[in-house]
């Protein structure tokens, strides 16, 4: 419940306001504060819900300690001014608390969700109808190079899909890229090893690998057990994969998907065997280790982009396009917002708020 009243010229530190409330005639004081505080402007109201001019006073009453509002019961609320021994009470106002159905302050949030949703769905539609340009991702050339080298050396290729399950975007991307790698590998008839940490991811990857061998015209060289499950436990998995690296000495190691502390244990061991290492992850806390220990790293969203680039599937390409539009929009907001905020300070005007408030996180 919000109480509002106009600013008075006697507002000063030594004058105090009291808030009184009661059911019927009996009123009790719930708050007292200096008269030069509790202005509307102290509270972050966006312009579309601001109840009064910024100079007005406001006080928020909430159910809580010593006060329990019942919905539908009328309450009498009033404000009193106290200065020294003087005390003036204003006429009480009637108020009936009603629960709100909509939090109007957050409408900018909803607006963004709807806008972004429309952009993403729209981009997917567009991608289904025509080609959308995607820039080349330099890391992908390294993939082909690594496969080529493994073939020359006659050594296997190790591909990891990370710690995530199929609901994570990075795992989905890792599975898509595996398809592409498998197709190349099939064409060269090189060995492929894909140890897994999640049974469902393994099942999905098995399908994808099989499909790739078919597409490469080499279904006869496909081995059912190139995808295999090790364990869900982080360190047992790591120890086992490290063992594979040391014994089989793969010529190329791929680390795609999401990773945790095990990342360094894997890439360091891989580097010690002299393999070409290519990583791609959106786990930003592990990126520094991939960047330093691997020959090439797809950073963050680059992983999603790589999978869209390779698959050319309209849904993925469209989503990527939608995200780009979103980023462009945010860039615009940042630029325009900074200019407006500066103008606001320089000329001490209030109108830039009309736009700035739209991009504030309000409750």
């Amino acid at each position, binding site marked *: 419940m919000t109480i509002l009243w106009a600013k008075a010229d006697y507002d000063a530190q030594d004058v105090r306001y009291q808030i009184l409330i009661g059911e019927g005639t009996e009123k009790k004081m719930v708050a007292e504060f200096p008269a030069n505080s509790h202005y509307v402007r102290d509270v972050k109201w966006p312009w579309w819900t601001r109840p009064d001019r910024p100079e007005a006073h406001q006080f928020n009453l909430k159910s*809580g*300690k010593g006060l329990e509002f019942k919905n539908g019961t009328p309450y009498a609320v009033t404000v009193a001014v106290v200065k020294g021994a003087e005390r003036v009470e204003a006429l009480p106002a009637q108020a009936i608390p009603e629960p709100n159905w909509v939090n109007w302050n957050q409408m900018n949030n909803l607006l963004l969700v709807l806008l972004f949703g429309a952009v993403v769905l729209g981009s997917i539609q567009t991608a289904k109808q025509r080609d959308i340009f995607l820039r080349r991702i330099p890391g992908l050339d390294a993939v082909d190079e690594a496969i080529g080298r493994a073939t020359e050396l006659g050594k296997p290729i190790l591909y990891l899909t990370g710690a995530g399950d199929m609901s994570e975007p990075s795992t989905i991307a890792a599975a898509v890229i595996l398809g592409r790698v498998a197709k190349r590998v099939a064409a060269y008839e090189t060995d492929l090893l894909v140890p897994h940490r999640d049974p469902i991811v393994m099942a999905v990857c098995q399908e994808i690998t099989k499909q790739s061998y078919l597409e490469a015209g080499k279904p006869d060289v496909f081995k059912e057990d190139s995808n295999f499950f090790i364990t869900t436990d982080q360190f047992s998995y790591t120890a086992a994969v490290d063992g594979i690296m040391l014994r089989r000495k793969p010529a190329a190691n791929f680390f795609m998907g999401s990773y*945790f*502390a095990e990342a360094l244990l894997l890439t*360091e061991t891989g580097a010690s065997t002299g393999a070409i290492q290519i990583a791609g992850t959106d786990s*930003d*806390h592990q990126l520094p280790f991939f960047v330093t220990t691997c020959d090439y790293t797809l950073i963050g969203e680059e992983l999603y982009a790589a999978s869209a680039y390779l698959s050319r599937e309209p849904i993925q390409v469209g989503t990527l396009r939608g995200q780009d539009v979103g980023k462009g929009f945010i860039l615009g907001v940042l630029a325009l917002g900074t200019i407006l905020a500066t103008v606001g300070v320089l000329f001490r005007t209030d109108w830039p708020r009309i736009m700035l408030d739209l991009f504030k996180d309000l*409750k």
Partner: protein
Amino acid sequence: MNFAERMLHIDRRIIFLVIGVCTLLPLLYPVGLAIKVSPEVRGVHDYIEALPEGSVFLLSMDYDPASKPELYPQAVALLRQAFRKNLRVIGMTLWLPGTGLADQVMTQVAREMGKVSGKDYVFLGWSPGSGSLIINMGQDLYKAFPTDYYGQPTRELAVLKGTQTLRDVNYVVSLAAGTSGIETWYVYGKDKYKFELGGGCTGVIAPGLYPLLRSGQINGLIGGLRGAAEYEVLIGQKERAVAGMDAQSATHFAIIVLVILCNVFYLLIRTSRKQGEAR
């Protein structure tokens, strides 16, 4: 293979040995270097210091044994300060494997400060759901945790009197070792239930939390063992974290020296190769 190349391909077990020795020696023979306190650590400390007696302080120990060396000293320091200020302390964890550690640290510090479970503090233990658990606590604490860790009904505990939801909590600090930690508390908790939030975390995730610190989503951040050492300095009880800082200094310098050596050898190889090409 020349000398530089051989040095670059040195058996890594020698490096392991160097690191081991550099950690062990200062632990055995400490020097006691001075520690400077950073503003983000002071943020948490000063906020607790300013809380009036009887305020509700919730400490969520969201870590597992793997992060004990960094976060356990932080928990000890925070609890000591909170108990000294006579705050009402609520302990809990979002990480299942951390339950025992959290229980141990609460019991130990409480005993040391002469505090009683149920009256001065409560340990709620663990419950699954992370984000949904926090929302649940924001709606009704007694429903989210019908009993505390020891099976006492929360509704009847003196320490929780008047604390029905997260809205009634004055300050929350999450000591986090990863996801289901500070961000979770912000997104599902502070965002809606408007308590003040501070954080402590392991060194690995600290850089990622700086945007939240900058934008005021958390009012302070204790980062890693170093942060814990700073906190121990602030509350004037120097212990494990401060003791570890010498070893930390030594290992950091060992690594810096290794990096410099690596680059020297690398440059040597590169120049000799260039000369070879020129010939």
